[in-house]
């Protein structure tokens, strides 16, 4: 019982934090950012999974790769979609044939990002209904 009680409290406060975090999602969802990089890099799964406090953040992987000077990463494309449907896209200049393939990936990922955001917004809407 004495061991179970703190577990119960952790569980309850974990959910309270989660609910608060989801509450911020509408604000963050006002714009959507998709960024695609390329470069001559190699990474191991454990860099993504076990590389620090915020272990699954891809930004950390990017930082690690840069710090260890393993590679030069190039931006292929960056897209920002605003809630009013304003879309800005920055694309690497002088695209080679291979880069054009990467741009296709970027556009596919943009579609997927929109769908992910929609899934989250649907969930929040459902929570509020």
């Amino acid at each position, binding site marked *: 019982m004495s061991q179970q009680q703190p*577990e119960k409290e952790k569980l309850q406060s*974990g959910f309270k934090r*989660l609910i608060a975090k*989801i509450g911020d999602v509408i604000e963050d*969802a006002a714009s959507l950012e998709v960024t695609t990089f390329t470069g*001559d*890099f190699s990474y191991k799964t454990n860099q993504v999974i076990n590389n620090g406090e915020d272990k699954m953040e891809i930004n950390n992987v990017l930082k690690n790769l840069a710090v260890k000077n393993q590679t030069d990463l190039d931006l*292929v494309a960056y897209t920002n979609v605003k809630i009013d449907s304003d879309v800005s896209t920055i694309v690497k200049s002088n695209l080679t044939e291979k880069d054009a393939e990467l741009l296709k990936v*970027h556009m596919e990922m943009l579609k*997927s990002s929109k769908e992910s955001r929609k899934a989250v917004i649907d969930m929040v809407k459902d929570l509020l209904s």
Partner: protein
Amino acid sequence: MIDSPDYIVEQLAREKASLPSDRQEIQQHLIELGYISLLKANVVTENEILVAQDHFLADVRSSGYFQASELEAFQLQGKRYLVRRLLREVTDIDEGLCLDQLPREGTVNLASRIIHYRLDLFGLWSHAIDVKYSRINSLSQLQIIGEYAQVSPLEAINQLADIEGFTRRLLALYKEEQFILTFHSPNADRSIHSEELNRRTAFKNQLKEDFGDKSDFFIFLRKEVLKSREKKIDFNFLEKERLNPFKNFVVRLIQIHQWQDGFYSGLLDSDMGDLTLKSFLDAIQFYNQSRERDFIKAHRIIIHVGKGYFLFNALFFLQEYMLEDDPSSLDASQSKVLDVITHNLSEADDPTQVAFQENLEQLKSEVYESPDSAPKERNGLLQRIYYGIKRIVRKALRFAKRIFKWILEKAKKAWRFLKKLFTHLFEDLRNGIVAFADGLKFLLGKRIIQSSSHEGSIVSAFKMDGDSNHLVSLGAVPLISEHVQQVNYSVNAMSFALSIVGGVLKIVLHIVNALSWPMLLFTIIKVYKKISESFKKLEL
């Protein structure tokens, strides 16, 4: 860390690790359908299971028994789920698949396997399941069932997809006396030969109630069989009755009912031995324990006549215990059962909740460490478990109000039933946890999708607000289409996972200050069931 949502993810991972894989069930069904040879049952390798799974999936796709949208909905929960779910549907005998025609002579396909599997359950198949469908072997056996049920061979195989309906049909077609069974178990355990089972009066009274005291059969039994002095008993009659083919078929039918309910875990062999006899007594005691009907003494239903011969009133047994009258749908029944348990949990004080959780843990370990759970070959037969869910859930609805208490008290007579019921609930919990944890990871920014080969890698990370970052290494161009496919699949699966998270949070929002771990687990099961059924109905 104390108030971090990460704690929930970590606890869920621990809970999931304590739940077993579904390998045993998949393996059993693949053997039952002849995709893995019965002779291999005790030594099957992981690779053989994978090959057999793919063979089964190919047969499913060419069978046309499932709609593409249904397959896609199952696939959203992963290939393993898809395989297990389909295997279960195909081997179901509660509300199993109905065939629209019999296979052509000489074919081996899903239909021929289903027919041979069902015949095998009823002890009417002595060949390998994957042999060709033929008039000589397959159709002739279907005709036996057809004659018993007075239907065509095609209708007969479809009748075996609904054992309860099939039983009702036999009860309606045949005279009551056809359900008074005789069996011989000379080596039956002493405890079974107890004094109680030697009492004639209660058994006679039950027969009178079922037949009236004017029927010829009853009069004959009273005068020639139900005698207290052995010398006066007509053992020739009993021996003749024991060999009656229809009555042997009814024995097998009851064995199947008992097996479906978890009372019988021996081989399906039509042998009314100790194990079958004990399963009858266990069932009677269990229903007495439930106190939902009048207490029924075992000797009203079964008696030892003498020299190892028993008389068994299968008419009463089937009508009283094996047929469920509640017309509720499976989803509604399961939902009601979970509602009652969750309600009991929410009203329990902390020490009671802790005790409940501990006993639930014990139940979990027993469900999966049970030696009965691994499919084994013995004497050319398969030792197996019935995994169909509909029947056990309908029964659980009958006892819903008692389940919480039975777990809390570790009720001995109900434990076998609870193990059977919770085999399904733990499995739903496992699937629910996978989806719930997946959704949570996404919300917490921990969802990474990667495609790699020796030439390069692509990594994609999605955040809760939809923002995403992608890394594509120079050599990874050939991986692009695979990666895009993987991301598309993950995003589809994400909408399922987030529906589970949303459904759970909606409930948790109202009870967060009273939330305990077991309450969360039952909530996950409940939401998972509801959402997965609604996704199944979606036209994807």
